[in-house]
């Protein structure tokens, strides 16, 4: 669309350059907007911003802000103060090599100004478009706030009871000491080794093949194997272990 872009409207908030002014920051959509407004009010050349003056005005403008709102503005305030300090530093005689510390701010301001102009153009497009209706246009339903909750004390108590009832009873896990009897298992194994050259390890489980005895036997086998008192074989994957006294046999 070739239509020339018109200047965005000035925010309705007004800032007088004298102290004791009134600021309506709600009218500004952010720190860059406020800054542009200050520059425009003062008829300041954007390429040569008197940072010290603008920084002071900016700080005065945001002075009245609440903390929530101020967050967005404080970062810019800090930036302006840093620039103010940088501008006070002696530049030396060599003007050519001097890099204007304001360049980044100017770039952002120009960029933001362009965005504002586009936004303004878009708002007018939307305005024009809103004058035309499609068939059977249904206005979007207004957003209703959720209805206020009305409960009496009894209902509240019943609800509390339901919540409490739904809480599962804490599951306590009792740890039962089940001491392993490695000595006993070792004794059983040694007795069997003395008797036979080879046997199935299940024979060493003892009279009651529970998990404790089984583990005890396994630990005893490993310990005896470490000492070289026996060799452990497994003929096939997952097959029961075979205990062998003979040290010359294949080991696993």
């Amino acid at each position, binding site marked *: 669309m070739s239509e020339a872009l018109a200047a965005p409207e000035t925010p309705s908030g007004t800032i007088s350059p004298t102290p004791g002014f009134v600021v309506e920051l709600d009218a500004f959509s952010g720190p860059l907007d406020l800054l542009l407004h200050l*520059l425009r009010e003062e008829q300041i050349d954007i390429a040569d911003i008197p940072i010290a003056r603008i920084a002071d005005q900016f700080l005065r403008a945001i002075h009245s802000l609440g903390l929530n709102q101020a967050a967005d503005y404080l970062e810019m305030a800090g930036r302006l103060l840093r620039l103010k300090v940088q501008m006070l530093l002696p530049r030396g005689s060599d003007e050519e090599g001097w890099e204007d510390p304001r360049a980044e701010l100017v770039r952002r301001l120009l960029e933001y100004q362009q965005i504002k102009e586009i936004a303004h153009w878009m708002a007018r497009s939307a305005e024009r478009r809103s004058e035309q209706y499609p068939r059977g246009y249904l*206005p979007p339903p207004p957003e209703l706030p959720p209805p206020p909750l009305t409960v009496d004390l009894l209902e509240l108590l019943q609800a509390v009871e339901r919540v409490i009832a739904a809480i599962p009873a804490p599951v306590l896990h009792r740890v039962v000491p089940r001491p392993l009897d490695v000595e006993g298992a070792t004794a059983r194994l040694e007795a069997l080794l003395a008797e036979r050259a080879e046997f199935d390890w299940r024979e060493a489980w003892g009279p009651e093949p529970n998990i404790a005895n089984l583990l005890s036997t396994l630990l005893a086998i490993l310990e005896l194997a470490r000492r070289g008192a026996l060799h452990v074989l497994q003929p096939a994957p997952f097959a029961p272990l075979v205990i062998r006294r003979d040290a010359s046999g294949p080991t696993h």
Partner: protein
Amino acid sequence: MPLAQLIEAALFTAARPLTVEELAMLDPDASLADVRTALDQLRETYDFNQHGVELVELAGGYQILSRPAFAAAIERAQFAVRVQRLTGAAMETLAVIAYRQPVGRMEIEEIRGVSASGVLRTLQERGLIEVVGRGEALGRPLLYGTTALFLELLGLKDLSDLPKTEELAIALRPPEPAVEDVADAAAYVPAES
């Protein structure tokens, strides 16, 4: 049966703009060129006979809309209500997204100098923007883009209807060579009321 009438009937019933491709599905014998010719016929009929509605090219498609001249009377009679206007902050955010899409929240905040999460949520709820992907940066930030509804809201055919950046008073150029032109533009006094 003339294609123009068939298309008119379809556009009348549709709740959104219909594309040329969609309209071509109405008649298996009709080519896209036939549909375009028929659309031109329909538009001329509305304009020549001064109908209260017109054929508008919108968001990549076509829609029958009432003419702007009748908006005030229609609203007075409360047959229709205008869509709620967007705030300045929302429009600015939309502008950034429209030009820089796909764009992440950080870049939007950097350009506008304010936090954007609230505005982004509002725009998303109104269906004007959508998440179009994830960025490569740390945390793989969500990237936003504008929707067809955005084009409808602004009455644009497509994104190329947006002002070209070189047509704007200030272009997004490095400030060095542009400083002279820029200074004048920045100090303007708004002419519009």
